């Protein structure tokens, strides 16, 4: 089930929330667990078993790791075993075909393999469960004895399908004890509406703009840049919108999750960008890969290795294709460049130039992200810099700039903090107006969601 659907908002959510608020507090975790299973199983009925297995396995391994606290060797073996099992599942479902294709490409031996559909949220819950085990191993947390409590952490529907990757340590207390009331529900609702509007009104329309542009095999330079601008905005509003909805739903349930995006597109350096973009993933790689590898407290050569390893893996996490690895390494290289060369220059120039620089790096980066085919990737990148382009500007570019102008303008404004600050002031001064704005955004989002099923039957078409 996805949040941005009529069914979720007008069927699942009201029924679930009504029950959640009416039943005694003791039963809420049980309801949340079963509600999450239904949420996941809806549309993914078979793979819910996989998610349950992962919960049970990691629950058990968590208690084992804690039990073996005084036996270093056995604890380590158990940790390695549980990492292997978790990653084996992830690799099997997500990277199996990719690995075989790569091996086939190198050796020429083509091994036929079934095309498995990727279980929803697999990358997210694998990383979530791993963080739980790592934290027990690092003695940051105690293992959860109560299976239901752990299962709620491990399967909770607000973040099960698309993150954020919430750490157990951050919500340990809330899993047992949390307050719910109408005002907190309202805070959640405001976040949810914001996220829904970002996803449905901005990201989905930007996606139409981008795919319209991509339907032209031959582009001018300006068309290519307009396309990648649309894609840049689409990705941010899609992902941050989904995170806002998740955090909002968490609030409705009484949880306080950390933010996952912090206006990444106002960053003044690439390293700052990654402190603001998908924060829960960046910190996961930092805490569980980069720092265990030695981080920056090693020789410069090892430090460089650490950064490149972490970023190749970050890239690979985003998808089973080499272009994602390339995309990750691209960022690794820019981070190294900033760390060792650019930093002292960047400090001296005005912040708006630094933001322009950062956004250029980011936008070019999204080209790597958007094209899984290397030929198409090279062609698009080339077009952006005039190689193979049909001139600098053409009427196609003007068409998309003209018809997408308002959308792009709103998008550029809406990825900066100012509109949200204005809105917070409005709440203080004129709460009724703020409510009306939310209702309008909600109604428009509903209209776009209803339209998704608009399929006119064209009688005797011609």
């Amino acid at each position, binding site marked *: 089930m996805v949040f941005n659907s009529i069914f979720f908002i007008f069927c699942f959510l009201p029924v679930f929330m009504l029950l959640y608020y009416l039943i005694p507090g003791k039963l809420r975790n049980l309801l949340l667990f079963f509600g999450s299973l239904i949420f996941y199983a809806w549309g993914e009925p078979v793979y819910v078993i996989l998610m349950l297995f992962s919960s049970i396995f990691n629950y058990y391994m968590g208690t084992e790791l804690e039990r073996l606290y005084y036996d270093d060797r056995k604890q380590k073996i158990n940790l390695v075993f549980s990492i292997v099992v978790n990653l084996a599942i992830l690799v099997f479902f997500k990277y199996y075909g990719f690995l075989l294709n790569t091996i086939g490409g190198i050796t020429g031996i083509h091994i036929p393999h079934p095309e498995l559909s990727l279980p929803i949220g697999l990358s997210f819950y694998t990383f979530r469960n791993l963080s739980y085990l790592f934290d027990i191993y690092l003695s940051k947390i105690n293992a959860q004895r109560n299976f239901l409590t752990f299962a709620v952490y491990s399967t909770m529907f607000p973040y099960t399908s698309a993150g954020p990757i919430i750490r157990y340590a951050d919500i340990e207390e809330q899993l047992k004890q949390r307050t719910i009331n109408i005002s907190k529900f309202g805070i959640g609702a405001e976040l949810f509406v914001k996220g829904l509007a970002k996803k449905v009104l901005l990201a989905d329309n930007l996606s139409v703009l981008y795919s319209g542009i991509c339907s032209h095999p031959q582009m001018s330079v300006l068309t290519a840049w307009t396309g990648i601008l649309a894609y840049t905005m689409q990705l941010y509003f899609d992902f941050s919108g989904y995170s806002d909805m998740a955090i909002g739903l968490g609030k409705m349930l009484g949880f306080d999750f950390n933010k996952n995006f912090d206006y990444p597109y106002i960053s003044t350096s690439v390293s700052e960008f990654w402190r603001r973009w998908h924060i829960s993933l960046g910190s996961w790689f930092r805490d569980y890969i980069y720092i265990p590898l030695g981080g920056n407290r090693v020789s410069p050569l090892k430090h460089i290795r650490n950064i490149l390893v972490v970023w190749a893996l970050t890239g690979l996490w985003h998808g089973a294709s080499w272009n994602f690895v390339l995309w990750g390494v691209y960022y690794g290289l820019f981070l190294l460049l900033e760390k060792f060369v650019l930093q002292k220059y960047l400090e001296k120039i005005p912040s708006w130039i630094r933001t322009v620089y950062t956004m250029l790096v980011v936008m070019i980066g999204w080209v790597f992200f958007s094209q899984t085919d290397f030929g198409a990737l090279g062609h698009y990148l080339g077009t952006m810099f005039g190689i193979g382009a049909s001139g600098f500007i053409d009427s196609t570019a003007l068409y998309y700039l003209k018809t997408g102008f308002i959308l792009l303008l709103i998008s550029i404004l809406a990825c900066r903090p100012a509109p949200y600050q204005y809105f917070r002031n409005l709440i203080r001064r004129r709460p009724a107006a703020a409510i009306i704005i939310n209702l309008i955004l909600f109604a428009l989002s509903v209209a776009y969601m*209803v339209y998704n099923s608009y399929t006119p039957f064209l009688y005797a078409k011609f």
Partner: protein
Amino acid sequence: MKKSLRNYRLFFHRMGLLFLFIPLVVLILSIILPDRGFSEKENRVLSSLPHLNGSQIASGGFEKQFETYENDQFPLRDLWITLKARTDRLMGKVESNGVYVGKSGYLMEEFKAPDQAQYDATVKAMTDFAQKHSDLKQYALIAPNSINILSNRLPAFAPVQDQNLWIDSLSDSLTDAGVTFIDVRNTFKDHKMEDLYYHTDHHWTTQGAYYAYLQAAKAMGIDTSSDTYDKAPVTRSFQGTLSAKSGFRSGEKDEIDVFLPTGDQALSSVVNYVDEQKKSASFYDTEKLGTRDKYALFFGGNHAQIKINTPTETDNTLLVLKDSYANSFVPFLAQHYRKIIMIDPRYYFGNLEQLIQVENVQEVLYLYNANTFFSDTSLELALTPESDGQDSSDTSDNE
């Protein structure tokens, strides 16, 4: 300060109440309100509550159907769809589902460049047919679409494909093969200030068909000097496919006219719907004016085969291979042919060769609109007699 804090609390409290209860009320409403069966706006049956079924649940099929059902039966569905389309327009969107919002109220369908292999096959089938039947007079009228003739009314910079390149290429190939190509583009451009096309539909108007007819008459040697018509509007509430397809201009309505021959010379025809085994004394099925698809007024829509007999002085038979553009066009020709056989290759699976012999056809007219013609696959099949035993032996004899 105190007041702003109070406002803050008030806001979130009200938001909480609203968003706890709005979805609940909508849910209750959608349960209470009776399900709609048919959507006039979308011209389709809306989905109904799916049946619970174990294997369907396990495969995810039930869940999908249920979501479609919820969407289809959402309270005030049509209003939401209109709201979406209006918002799109406000945001500057001028295209949806391949339909452009043109100036002066025109919706125009995009032209998709044909698949080269399919195009080549169709042209080859037509030229082969022309050579094989060099005794038949053959004409082709491929009507340009509004996106071509009214290109100056397209939204600014619209990235559309040029239909003319393809029409020109087709014209050359067919002319070389001895088919007379009836090019109505110049005539249409001369009259483009008139309503040659419906504003909300992809068809030409009867006026457009009439101008095309005058042009065709010249090429086909038809004397139109004694033709006189009464132009009669039969409906003013036609909402065509393009408005349904795009969701734009859903309030706009078109007028449909019929041209009725007047004067003492006017002959009346008998229309024979062969497959349906139905005869009629009129080209027009006025019952269709009560449905959404009002263009089906002409001959009741598309049929595999229609024979029209008219007591003309000359004894001549015309075969028309056609799409729906012909439906409003052929009534003009009826005054000048003893027999007209309309074949729609998309629905016709009979033997064309036999038909030509049995009916003693002397002339053949291809009548299509360019958008359909250049995406069509059925004409090639109808003209290529390979599946039929007798015909294939004929071909081998020729070789």
